[in-house]
């Protein structure tokens, strides 16, 4: 098995679990019984460190809000979509990342939307939050995935300088 593919699988699974936890929080709160509710409260508590979780700004499932707000949900799920689609358009061994200008272009609409809304200049709606968050999350994936694979491959080869081919990104 190629090391990069293995790293990709682990990374994709981790992000998938993260996204699953966002959706699982409301389901467990409503249908999970007492144990499920405890897990759900733990998930809500964990996510509260990274998101405001305002009810009016969150998607709902089974009558309970997601673990994070609609903007964060869009970022994480489009990040996951970016990870899933990446191997179809780029080889996993590729070390190329887009120029930094694209990163700026992807983040600016989201920052402007959030900042102008809080400043009372423009009213951001669910659509603008979803669209701007999705663009940012998707583009983040195009930067982070190749660098993450490259970084772990480098670390593996540093740890195995005598050269086990599995750790040089080659086939076993």
């Amino acid at each position, binding site marked *: 098995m190629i090391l990069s593919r293995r790293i990709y699988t682990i990374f994709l699974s981790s992000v998938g679990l993260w996204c699953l936890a966002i959706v699982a929080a409301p389901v467990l709160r409503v249908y999970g019984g007492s144990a499920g509710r405890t897990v759900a409260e733990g998930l809500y508590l*964990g996510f509260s460190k*990274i998101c405001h979780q305002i009810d009016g700004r969150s998607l709902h499932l089974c009558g309970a809000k997601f673990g994070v707000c609609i903007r*964060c949900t869009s*970022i994480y799920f489009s990040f996951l979509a970016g990870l899933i689609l990446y191997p179809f358009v780029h080889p996993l061994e590729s070390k190329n990342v887009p120029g930094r200008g694209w990163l700026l272009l992807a983040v600016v609409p989201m920052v402007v939307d959030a900042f102008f809304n809080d400043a*009372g200049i423009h009213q951001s709606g669910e659509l603008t939050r979803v669209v701007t968050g999705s663009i940012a999350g998707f583009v983040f994936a195009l930067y982070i995935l190749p*660098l993450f694979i490259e970084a772990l491959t480098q670390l593996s080869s540093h740890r195995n300088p005598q050269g086990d081919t599995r750790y040089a990104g080659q086939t076993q």
Partner: protein
Amino acid sequence: MLDKPSKWRSALFGGIAIGLISGIPVINLVNCCCCAGILGGGVFTYYLYREEHTEGMVPLESSDGLILGIMAGLIGAFVQAVIHGFLILLFAGAQEQLMRSIMGKILDRLESSGSFPSDALDQMRDQIENSMKESNTMWGVMLSLFTSLIINPIFAMLGGLLGYAIFKSKKPQQTLPTPTTPQ
């Protein structure tokens, strides 16, 4: 070729920045948007490290960004806990009053600007009130440290990788040969 500089110095300063952003009340609201403060701290850590790197040294790699981010995230979690505990010990009641007053002003301003629906603002008031009650105990500090030790390294690592992408030199670097087994 010279070795790369030690990562500890940059990670320490980056960690302090992450701890300050996450630990100081009001400023820590930045983290409400997908841990933007911690991500930014990871980028800042890589930037500091790159500033220490000079020509003639072994080229920087993406793994440097990854390790720097993790180190800064972990240091940041402890700095945040220290700030949190320090604020409780020093200002316990006064800090709560001050926070209540600052947050009240911010929420009033948001209400008058009309950018938030009033029920969302009421909910924010409740959340702030609850989180102040929960966090102003040593148990709250320990719980916060536990979650930060998980979340900070993840997001700071992503920040470190983004920092590598942002500050990467455009001219081609001489890369180290990847060791392989002779065929």
